[in-house]
């Protein structure tokens, strides 16, 4: 067989790729207790799924609200939505977050967002929209449970809601309908940002929890590779 220089480089690249991906093979990483790794992966996957689901729901709901809320360049002030947990954070601050704080922030944010989201269901006048919202709420509840599972696996306690810190932002007669619509707009927007941030959070967490690739290499050598 005729091997050329290009082929040699290709084989080397292939070998490197295989070695790089060896840690991802679950069967080779099992050393007994799987640890929080799979839970984090599942949470990450769920986050991505919810991102996709929210794109569809937000489109439908914002059309229901009507213009200007369904216009792409509409960017109103937050006003009543100030109480919503903000996903946006300084990059340095985000990097410096420890695992516990990172997970706690996620948990608290989705707890509040879920509560607000259930409020949307009351505004919806069409049965189809109510069904979509209910389905998304169920999925979000699942994400919350998944985060709680990761925290438990890592030995972190779940944050207890302090008295008086229950979400005060809720539709009420004091609020104008327009501001309510703006809050709904912001709720969906913030939810979208949170899901995006969570994906980053869980990806970072996932990498951090996994053992380094060198250890795997040693492990493979011991088995005569």
């Amino acid at each position, binding site marked *: 067989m005729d091997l050329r220089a290009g082929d040699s480089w290709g084989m080397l690249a292939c070998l490197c790729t295989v070695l790089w991906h060896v840690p991802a093979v679950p069967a080779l990483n099992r050393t007994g207790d799987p640890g929080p790794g799979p839970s984090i992966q599942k949470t990450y996957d769920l986050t991505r799924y919810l991102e996709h689901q929210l794109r569809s729901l937000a489109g439908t709901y914002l059309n*229901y*609200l*009507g*213009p*200007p*809320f369904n*216009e792409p360049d509409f*960017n*109103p*002030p937050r*006003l009543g939505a100030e109480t919503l947990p903000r996903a946006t954070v300084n990059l340095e601050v985000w990097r410096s977050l420890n695992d516990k704080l990172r997970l706690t922030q996620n948990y608290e944010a989705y707890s509040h967002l879920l509560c607000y989201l259930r409020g949307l269901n*009351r*505004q*919806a*006048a*069409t049965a189809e929209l109510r069904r979509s919202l209910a389905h998304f709420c169920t999925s979000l509840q699942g994400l919350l449970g998944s985060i709680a599972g990761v925290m438990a696996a890592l030995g972190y306690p779940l944050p207890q809601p302090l008295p008086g810190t229950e979400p005060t932002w809720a539709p009420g007669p004091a609020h*104008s*309908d*327009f*501001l*309510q*619509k*703006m809050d709904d707009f912001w709720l969906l927007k913030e939810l979208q940002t949170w899901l995006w941030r969570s994906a980053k959070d869980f990806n970072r967490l996932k990498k951090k929890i996994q053992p380094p690739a060198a250890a795997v290499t040693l492990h493979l050598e011991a088995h005569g590779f």
Partner: protein
Amino acid sequence: MDKLSPLTPVSPRISFKSSLQHLDLEWTVQNLPHHQELKMIFLIEISRIRTSNIIWVGNYSTTVKWNQVIHWSWKSELPLECATHFVRIKSMVDNGMPPELSSWSEWSSWEEVHAQNPLEPNALFVFPKRKLVEEGANVTICSIFGSNLKDIFCYLEGELIHGEQLDSHILTFELSNVPFVRVSGMNFYCVEKPTNITDGIVLFVSKVLEEPKDFSCETRDFKTLSCTWSPGVDTGLGWSMQPSQSYTLVESVSRERKHCEHKNVCNWKITQELQEIYNFTLIAENHLRKRSVNIFFNLTHRVHPLAPYNVSLESIEATQATLRWKVLYHGNRYSLLCQVELEGEGKVIQQSNVSVKVSGEEIFSELVPDTEYQACIRCAGAGHFWKWSEWNCQKFSTSEAAPSEALAVWSTVREENGSCIVNLFWKPLSKLHAKGKILHYNIITENLDKPHRVKLYSASGLANDMKLTLDQCAYQINVTASNSAGQSPASVIAISGDSGKEVEEERIQRTEDGFFVSWKPLSADNIIGYVVGWCVRLQDPLCDLQWKNIGPNTTSTVISSDAFRPGIRYDFRVYGISTGRVASLIEKRTGYYRELTPSMNPRVTVKNLTSHSFVLSWTDYSTNDQSGFIQGYHVSLKSKNRQCQPGFEKAVCSDDSVCCKYNIKNPEQKTFTVENLQPESHYEFLVTSYTRVGEGPNGTFTAVTTPDELSYTLVQIILPMIFSVLLIISVCYWKSQWVKEKCYPEIPDPNKSSILSLIKSKENPHLTIMNVKDCIPDALEVINKPESTKAQVMGTEKPFLAESELTAYLYPLQKEHSGPGPWICFENFTYNQSASDAGLCGHIPVPSKDLPWQQGLLTQPDNLLNVLEGNCEQPLREIPAGEASLNYVSQLASPLYGDKDSFSNNPTTTMPEPCSDYKMQMAVPACLASPLPSKESSLSSVVLLDQGEHYH
């Protein structure tokens, strides 16, 4: 009455309802006498922003008591939050006099209304915060903003709109005829640039509530009234602004009301049995409007009965059945009218109405036996029709009855081997006449010559024909059909052996109605009718025979059938039926349902081709099997010179070329001679048949080339000559041997020689001829002749020795040889065809290198050694080439006796024959060397001599 002093309103108090945009005023009137009521008029002024800016002035008249608080309300078009409003009131006693003659009180002080707190410099608000209007309403929206805000942009449904500046910090927007856009309302918002301070409202526009349509109530059981209506559009809105409209049922006689749970139906329970009259009002209601409809009715007029139950059919017979049913009992005062329908084959055939209180009965008569029916029944109020109940249907079938009609029977008869083959056909009875399922057909044959010879046949109920083989053709046949209830009347048909007279076939044309067949009436009085028979499917052996019975006084009929197809020839036969039921053929007609052009052209063969003519023949073309009556043929001929022969006409052929056409008008003429042709010319012809409709299909022309005249003549003369010459040659050849023998024999027969007679007569009258048999050979000479010798000997003559050397041996034969014989010469066995041609016989091809004894097939070595004594031990190849030579064996030479050695040493030595002086040489054919004892000798005795190599 004294003039009253003016009474001034005091302590006006103003309250504000944001949702309704109402200003509610409350005040009292001072100095009002105790226990006295005064009719007063209040003049109210409302100013906006400033007291001087009066926007509304109006009167309010009311009766005022002492210490009474007077309430008045004013609705503002502009949202009250957007501007400060001022109100003042003055009053006057309404004494019936014109206002100018009465005196007004003093104005109350201006009361100021601030619906909105003082604005902050960066504040921006849009009002009204929550507004619900109906489609088509006019709405005023206002925006107020603080002193720091300058550039305010307002949008309705995302579209920028411009408002009216009411004040430096107030913008108003008049929206007229607002449409319904969505249940979540129309969005209106203002934003200040560049601070992006935003506020907005949602304007909820409701569809107009419609009046319920088709409001109606009815009862099915006198226990519940079911009221239904069409609700129209749903006016519900989102954000809990307005639910869907509600419906309420109010009955004014009983003064009861019920909120309806559904939007199009409401059930009302009948509690008072004695209440017959109901007055219902249906009220539809939403936040903006209330609509109502009313109906008034007598309960017994709104009865929609339930479907009859326990519907059953009893006493079902062949032509009669009884239907029984029950209805819900509504009391003695109320009866139902029930409609009964009898359906057969999908159609209503009987209908009747029966008045019923509890149960009903209806008898159906004149039913058709063995028929499926469906009886259906429904009921409605007898006194006042409101609605029919649902149908309740039951199916039933009447029982069978005996067939009522005799079968239509016809037959074809033919004689075969002395028997009479009768194909009997009958038409199945119609359902009306069969009156049940025909189980079988009974056929009874009765010999007319021997009336007591009756035979019964039976055919399945599905059969329509039967083949009978009878011993003779004089029979009467009775046919009946049977079902489970009985037998039909018998159909009688008679057959006779008389084939009748020969009738000529006539052609008929189809008319619009069908084939018109007419015949000459038979004068005989014993004719009871006529039958016209024809075949529908000609390919079928039984041909799906059809027939039509016609009365005795009719002499024509029109035969029509859906089975007739264009291009098919149908033959019709008209029979007269005698009183004895015997049919006799009287007419034959044939015709096409529609004639078509011939589907195929004749297949033409060319015969008798000469230089000036040829004959076209299509004798195998059948004119009867075509798709129309063949009226003739067209012979189309094409030639290079385009000259038409006599009788031909120029025409345009099917391939658009010019050709000559000849019309043969006799369809039975199936040969045609094309004459007056040029020798050695190319012609093309096509023969097409034609019917009344047109010509046959376009075919391809067939080419013919006429031969040239000379060659034709030559062929006429030379061929017989060649034949004759060949015949003569054959005869000559056949007789050549005989001639040769006679005229110039190869070996003259001394007995026949004229010389002999000459010698005899002149010299030696005792001269005799020696007989060959008298010579007894003593030795065999084997000659081995080398090539050179051979070449020398043969000279210029044709060589016939293929091998380079010729070896021969001469062996002395034993004296005790078994039998006398001539010289036997053993030669080399190699020879060629020339040797064969030389008239030698017994020659066998042998490879030259194989010795004779090596040829097992030819001569066994032992046999040969028996013949050749021990002196011939010298091998063949050891003989010196110079000594070997072709030997000559004289016919008269003496055979060698005695010295074997000398023989072996000098094989070429020959001894003269002492007993004969005849020296003429001869070749001895093996076949003539008969004295050789063994059969192998015929294979080996060969003399190889050419005619020119005779030694003397």
